């Protein structure tokens, strides 16, 4: 019987350092590339051994359907991501996915707002929204973290940058710059991924400016498919949501104030 979701062994094509502790892993995964939507993720088994045991959820950052390749952009933060950074071209990686629900692609004049590694899923979103005019507001701690500019410059018409230390773009957080951008921009959709406080701020401002807003949430995940209930949160309608299978992308009003 042909079942729609899969676990695939994908070949590592490249694995390169693109910024401080951040890597881009390019994989041959034609089955996933053929169906993946922006905002979906893969559940990566970093090693075939019993430790580390659990899979790691990583967003699909780029898709080249014609070539059958995808890329993941990930930050080394612990054991599993450190093992991923060791993956050599030619080796294989076990991927489960694509999992979760992606972003809506209805926007005509989209604004993307991303902070830190939360920018990863927005790359594929920007790819998918092209040739519509895409504007992005990206935030990081310092200019060293803004290697993202190189990735987004061919995908976005306008790029706004904030850094915590002011070393590039406007000093402060993305949310500090967002009010102005929304006021000037005539956007019809805001898409956001990043730290929770940022998402809350983005959602609040989008609502204030009457613009539809989707956010991508994250949580610790075991199964990735809605079976273990490690990743649930409360929806504003009183019903529970599983971030892995009901999300990770939600309409902001569904899960944030």
């Amino acid at each position: 019987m042909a079942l729609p979701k899969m676990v695939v062994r994908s070949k590592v094509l490249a694995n390169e350092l693109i910024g401080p502790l951040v890597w881009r892993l390019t994989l041959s995964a034609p089955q996933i590339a053929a169906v993946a939507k922006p905002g979906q993720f893969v559940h990566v088994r970093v090693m075939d051994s019993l430790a580390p045991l659990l899979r790691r959820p990583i967003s699909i950052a780029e898709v080249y359907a014609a070539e059958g390749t995808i890329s993941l952009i990930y930050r080394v933060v612990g054991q599993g991501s450190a093992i991923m950074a060791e993956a050599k071209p030619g080796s294989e990686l076990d991927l489960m996915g694509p999992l979760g629900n992606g972003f809506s692609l209805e926007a005509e004049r989209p604004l993307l707002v991303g902070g830190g590694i939360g920018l990863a899923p927005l790359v594929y979103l920007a790819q998918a929204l092209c040739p519509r005019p895409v504007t992005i507001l990206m935030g990081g701690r310092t200019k060293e973290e803004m290697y993202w500019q190189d990735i987004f410059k061919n995908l976005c018409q306008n790029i706004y940058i904030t850094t915590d230390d002011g070393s590039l773009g406007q000093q402060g957080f993305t949310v500090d710059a967002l009010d102005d951008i929304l006021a000037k921009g005539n956007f019809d959709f805001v898409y956001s991924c990043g730290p929770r406080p940022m998402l809350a701020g983005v959602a609040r401002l989008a609502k204030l400016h009457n613009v539809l807003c989707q956010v991508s949430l994250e949580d610790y995940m075991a199964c990735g498919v809605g079976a273990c209930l490690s990743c649930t949160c409360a929806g504003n309608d009183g019903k529970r949501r599983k971030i892995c299978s009901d999300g990770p992308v939600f309409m902001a009003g569904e899960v944030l104030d």
Partner: protein
Amino acid sequence: MLAVNIAGIKMKTPVMTASGTFGFGPEYSEFVDLNRLGAIVVKGTTLLSRTGNFGRRIAETPAGMLNSIGLENPGADEFLTMTLPKLAKYDVPIIVNISGNTVEEYGKMATKLSVSGVAGLELNISCPNVKQGGIAFGTDPASAAAVVCEVKKNTSIPVIVKLSPNVTDIVAMAKTVEEAGADAVSLINTLLGMAIDTASWRPVLGNIVGGLSGPAVKPVALRMVWQVAKAVKVPVIGMGGIMTAQDAVEFLLAGASAVAVGTANFVNPYASVDVAEGIKDYLRVRGLSDVRQLVGRVNDNIV
């Protein structure tokens, strides 16, 4: 070759899914043909819905994981009206894992859930993640017996009692619930554990403590299954750290008549069918025709 009958529940294979690790079944239906499972044991269900514990609910540990989900579930009524009808199209026994705050609640749930489509009840008297009930019933033989009696009074479908490993004498517990009327016992539930973040000096889990599962617990689970299987007449369902068919065969040899796959589903979503297929291969290689030829056959005579 693989078919077994556990307390009247007819299963195509001896491999079931462990409660809380396979949702209600459909969550994995895009990976696994549910018709090929021995039985689906659904997520722990309570009389009223529960939102579960706050904060971080899982932590990876060496070859294992801690969870403190806290029995989040939509409640028995929603299970009956929303979930059970969706499971009707699958040809697989559905076993409902139930948890109560009081002895009476277990009885009420037994009545409610004894409907067509439910092949059996598994009494969770061993959940380490809830304040009331749960493990309290599983560590005190008198309370455990009371729960089993109350459930048996209120249902005629098979009753499996799920035992906690967090006791000093699992054999005494197993014998007590057998005497009280259990039709089968399953073990082990998770082992109570903890993890601490050395950067923040805080417990990793929001609930501070949680239940350990996965390969790390297998030797403990196997030992307990072996002890219990020797002491009771009712069938034993073995679980705890089963990742492969080899692991399952160990449990069968130790005396389990069926096994359940839990944490392994998270790592390999095909684990439940892979294990069943692997048992079949093992039987073939060993020239055996029936999985029951393995049950309890560990050669543990000291010469």
